[in-house]
């Protein structure tokens, strides 16, 4: 089973990025084999709809859950359509976030927790 973590860097020691659509990297972690790959987030610089584009990229990776700080309403719709579980409010080191997920310490989110354009810099 694979999960995705929004990350500020390309390693498991990077920090979890609080934005879904505009994070620099996605870490795709395979729980079964304890391996990971990272993908650069090409949607980061898009004018609008970054979460929508990123959501489709992640859906194509066939992950079953995404861990991030926040999800906007547009990204939420895409991930929901792809039956991907979302965990918001996740912070700290990517490796620790994965551990928390494995231990069942994270709570699944049932709605978008920020407005559109949250990741565009006005809030951070």
């Amino acid at each position, binding site marked *: 089973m694979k999960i995705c973590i929004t990350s500020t860097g390309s390693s498991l020691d990077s920090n979890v990025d609080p934005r879904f659509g505009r994070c620099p990297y996605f870490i795709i972690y395979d729980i079964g084999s304890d391996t990971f790959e990272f993908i650069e987030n090409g949607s980061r610089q898009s004018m609008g*709809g970054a979460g929508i584009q990123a959501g489709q990229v992640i859906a194509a990776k066939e992950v079953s859950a995404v861990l991030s700080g926040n999800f906007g309403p547009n990204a939420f719709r895409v991930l929901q359509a792809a039956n991907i579980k979302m965990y918001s409010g996740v912070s700290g080191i990517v490796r620790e976030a994965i551990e928390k997920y494995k231990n069942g310490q994270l709570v699944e989110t049932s709605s978008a927790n920020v407005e559109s354009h949250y990741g565009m810099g006005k809030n951070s």
Partner: protein
Amino acid sequence: MIISVASGKGGTGKTTVAVSLALAAEYCQFADYDVEAPNADIFLKPGIKNIKKVTIKHPYFLTDTDKDFSGCAKFCHYNAVAVIGTEVLFYPQLCHGCGGCILVGPEGAVREKDVEVGEVSKGFSRPGIDFLEGNLIPGSMRTTTVQNELEKMINRSGLVIIDSPPGNSCSMVMSVKNSDYCILVTEPTPYGFNDLLISMDVLDSLKIPYGVIINRDGIGDTVVEDYCNAQNKKILLKIPNDIEIAKCYSRGGTLFDYDKSYKEKFQKTLEEIENSIFQ
């Protein structure tokens, strides 16, 4: 001849100046391009004679056909379409109505429908002012679509006064791009000065001649005036910072109601602009 009135900073007196120019000219076309918050009608009091709806085309997807719509999502530069498996998600607030998804999508399975984004109104104001105004539906992002509709109604064989929205982005460029001359209204404050420089940059790039009107003269500092003098930028007029002007404005009055001599001042300004264009 088109004269546009613009300002980077909001609330510097664009409408006050644009309305004064129209009333000084007596016979002209006046177009309120600030479609997100038009307000020149308060001062020109036109009788609106007809209103036309402005629409754009949005796609809808016939997903019961089991066809592959992923090309639509790939094509859309604005990410207004997402495709997850067989499900198509459409985000109307991001759609620019370009119709691209119809061209690249499965044939016959992406259709178009009209969506209202605003309206344009036409009226007549004393003494001989043809009045045009655009109104964008709140929440819509299609500002320039409504402005485009106004543009079609402009008749530049006579004098046209365009009241631009504040700022220096797309909607301002739309308002000034066809003008023969642009008046930049500013106030003598650091904020006013900063945004004035950006406006000047825009107009220099578009190769549109311009002059400056300093409103609320007396507040702030002399940085705008010093800069204009040093850089040879024309200062057309200075309007003093007087509470009586604000009182008059808040009752829907014009500068001429405050002081009759402004009619002559603005007529002189118009003459000056005309001479500078046709020199």
